[in-house]
């Protein structure tokens, strides 16, 4: 992966909104590496089970050159705990994982900059001061509006309308809990260790 800009997807909102609007590819319209903490991917796919979790998994698999699923201790501990507590929920798991990833010493080296893509998040407040000057938080809608202004997409508003329409359709479909185990296994398969080896 190369490039001076890195897009960190630090909460589930962007992935879910773009997935249900069938617009995940818009994340690739910027010349940047995309980093998704494993816990955020897990939460997004689990949350989106009735909205299109498989779409997110398939999209990540199809674009591994540009997308890194970053492993975190936070998710590793959570995943292990779920073996005995299947219904365990940690509301701030994704945020803790995101902070862990951003603060890794070899992230944002030199003049590299980071965009934190989030619906809203307190992540930036928790990132060490030295990195704040080269990190900016951006909502999904604002990300889309930049693409629209750059004439990379036709309409940011249309994406949100599609997400809202998907929400209406999804509300009539029951959650597919059986997908959870498969989703977790898929995430394990997508996680890349920092040394470049796949996590077994």
């Amino acid at each position, binding site marked *: 992966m190369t490039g001076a*800009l890195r897009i960190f997807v630090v*909460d*589930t*909102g962007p992935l*879910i*909104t773009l997935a*249900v609007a069938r617009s995940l590819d818009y994340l690739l319209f*910027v010349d*940047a590496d995309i980093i998704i903490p494993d816990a955020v991917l897990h*939460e997004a796919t689990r*949350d*989106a089970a*009735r*909205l299109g979790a498989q779409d997110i998994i398939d999209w990540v698999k199809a674009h591994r050159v540009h997308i890194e699923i970053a492993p975190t201790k936070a998710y590793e501990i959570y995943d292990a705990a779920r073996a005995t507590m299947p219904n365990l*929920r940690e*509301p701030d798991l994704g945020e803790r994982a995101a902070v862990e990833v951003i603060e890794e010493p070899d992230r944002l080296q030199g003049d590299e*900059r980071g*965009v934190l893509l989030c*619906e*809203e*998040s*307190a992540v930036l407040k928790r990132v060490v001061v030295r990195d704040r000057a080269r990190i*900016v*938080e*951006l*909502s999904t*809608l*604002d*990300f889309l*509006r*930049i693409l629209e*202004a*750059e004439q990379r997409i036709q309409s940011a508003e249309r994406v*949100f309308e599609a*997400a*809202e*329409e*998907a*929400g*209406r359709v*999804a*509300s009539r479909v029951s959650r597919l809990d059986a997908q959870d185990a498969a989703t977790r296994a898929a995430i394990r398969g997508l996680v890349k260790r920092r040394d470049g080896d796949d996590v077994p």
Partner: protein
Amino acid sequence: MDQRERTLLEAYSRGEMTAIELRRRLDGATYGEVLQRLAEAGLKLPRAPVAGREERIALARSWMFPHDRRA
């Protein structure tokens, strides 16, 4: 959906409440659940501007598309 939940969703839709606050008040609802509850209530995702947003957009745009001097 009771009136309390609808009131909360309406406040979020108008941009008067953050998603984090809404999810907390809805007993830890996930973002996907918020999306679906908004749809059930016939409400839109919030579009309202937030403080400092224009500056963030300009900065992010200049990083995302550095060739573009309009940012």
